[in-house]
């Protein structure tokens, strides 16, 4: 019973926050609703028993993608009111796209019902061992069978990091950096002078 209640709760929230994402006038609000939709989708994944995907949704989509998106929305000066201005003009085209999408969905579901596609059979390595959660199962695979590829993927990330630094980091001549040890070594007696200027004369430092 609790499952059913939880499912409907998450599902309704996902659909509703998805709808509000599209409908809300303020793009920042849209992104916030999108984040709520991601959280609820993660809840649905937990209900299905795919904890790993639920965690990925929260960490990758909420933690990185949505926040990045929020930054983009806030940093770029996009006039969303102007973007929406041509609604009536572009309505026929939009309706056409919607009809095509609907037709594709109907066709796809029809083809699926007909059972025309024969997919390959997994070779058995994909099944989760009994008694372990799927996070544990994925971890075991990553660190045993796919250890080499996992490490190689780490090298790719390293290459990406080196690349980003090489292409953007440069020594700039027009700015002055902070030299903390030099700052700390400076004593009051080196920095302050007591001079007694003559009347009408400037101060020589």
């Amino acid at each position, binding site marked *: 019973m609790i499952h059913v209640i939880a499912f409907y709760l998450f599902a309704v929230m996902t659909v509703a926050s998805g709808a509000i994402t599209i409908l809300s006038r303020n793009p920042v609000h849209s992104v916030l609703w999108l984040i709520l939709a991601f959280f609820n989708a993660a809840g649905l994944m937990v209900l299905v028993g795919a904890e790993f995907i639920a965690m990925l949704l929260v960490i990758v989509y909420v933690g990185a993608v949505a926040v990045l998106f929020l930054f983009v929305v806030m940093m770029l000066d996009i006039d969303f009111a102007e973007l929406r201005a041509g609604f009536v003009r572009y309505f026929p085209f939009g309706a056409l796209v919607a009809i095509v999408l609907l037709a594709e969905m109907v066709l796809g579901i029809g083809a699926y019902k007909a059972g025309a*596609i*024969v*997919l*390959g*059979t*997994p*070779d058995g390595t994909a099944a989760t061992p009994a008694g372990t959660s799927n996070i544990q199962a994925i971890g075991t695979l990553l660190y045993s*069978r*796919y*250890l*080499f*590829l996992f490490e*190689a*993927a780490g*090298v*790719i990330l*390293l*290459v*990406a990091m*080196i*690349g980003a*630094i*090489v*292409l953007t980091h440069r020594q700039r001549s027009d700015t002055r950096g902070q030299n903390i040890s030099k700052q700390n070594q400076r004593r009051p007696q080196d920095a302050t002078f007591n001079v007694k200027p003559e009347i009408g004369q400037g101060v020589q430092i």
Partner: protein
Amino acid sequence: MDWSHSLRLIAPEETLSIAGLILLLIAAWGGDKASRLISILAVAALIGATALVAPALCSGAMGPDTSAFFGQIHADAFSSFGKILIYLSAAATLVVAPTFFDRFGAMRAEFPILVLFAALGSGLMVSAGDLVALYIGLEMNSLAAYVLAAFVRTDGRSAEAGLKYFVLGALASGILLFGMSLTYGFSGTTSFEGINAALSGGLSHGALFGVVFMLAGLAFKMSAVPFHMWTPDVYEGAPTPVTKFFATSGKVAAVGLTMRVMLEAFADQADAWRQIIVFIALASIVVGALGAIGQKNIKRLMAYSSINNVGFILVGLAAANVQGASAMLFYLVIYVAMTVAGFVTVLMLKDEAGNPVEDIASFAGLSRTRPGLALGLGLVMFSLAGIPPLFGFWGKFLVFRAAVDAGMMPLAAIGFAASVIGAFYYLKIVKVVYFDEPVDVIKGESDIWHKAILVVTCLFISPLGYLLSGWLQGLTDTAAAALFHAL
């Protein structure tokens, strides 16, 4: 599975990655002043890795003993053949790069490290036995390549080359991934062996789409027509040593990977993909030859020449047998030697101030002002054109013979006719260099290393190369046999 056995088989990869990490630390502390030292150490690491892979080729390693990590990596004679070519041409890149970059003060400590990681990725590509390994090797190579193309970021052309390569490369990776996911969906496994077994009953429509999309992605990486559009721009804009790296290591890796995928994963489906390969091969030969005719820039011309050469190499793949694969590998060796010689010559063509000269018109009368350089350029062009006494002819002969033996007479005939068209623009350069009035632009001197590499590669592509052909034929036959025994 025996872990220590697997770890022993990937010793060259371990050497390269550990060397890369240590050099990265030296770069972090030493800064750009240490770039000379890092270059030398990186070359040493590449030579060391070459020494580690060579025994597998000499002993003709093949079969189940050579598969590491549940068949994800094959360390057989084929992969060591590819790796030797890749590592040596990466080392040649590192040798010629410093003098090029020093002129702009653009030599940075990260350059040799990125080349090292790109070579590591290329090595993974030729030894992949699994779709995941394929993709990881490809991306490691590509990511490093994007950065290398944009390495001289103060130069607009270099930045443009990097951006263009990145955007189109990402698109191609997406297409390749789509093909891989379809292939996985219809075969239920990611290992090449498993895919071949699962598809042995014939290709369904979905799996056929997978093959086509994978071929499209691979053709992009090989810069084969119709996915070649990026090549002239990237080759022209990227710094010349980097262009040389793309045209040698990158090409060997992409061709090796394509051979692995086509002859292992889809080995029993050769009838399904042969017509695609025939089309790609012929289109590359023709477009490469015709596109090069109007070029004024030597690097753009070399880009079209590389498209043209990929076409010839793929003629061997269309045969889909051991003889064809062996001919492809033989052609690859000669192609790498010709390309290294060609780009080293381009690097040596400098004006009085030491700036690179890429305009073909400026080479006029080079034979009278710089006879040695002119001879090198002439040899490379004649060899690329496939004029008989030179070694370049032998590679073309082998791939065409493989095609004819496999009963593909029309393919060989059209390819042969198109190679005559291709000869036109190579000979045009020889004409400019030997018969035009001297303009006397090329005056810069080059260091001993450029000359040494040029002399060695020119000797190889000269008729003297035929002395090695028996030995090379033995090696390519072993490597090709290993490819067919990997399953």
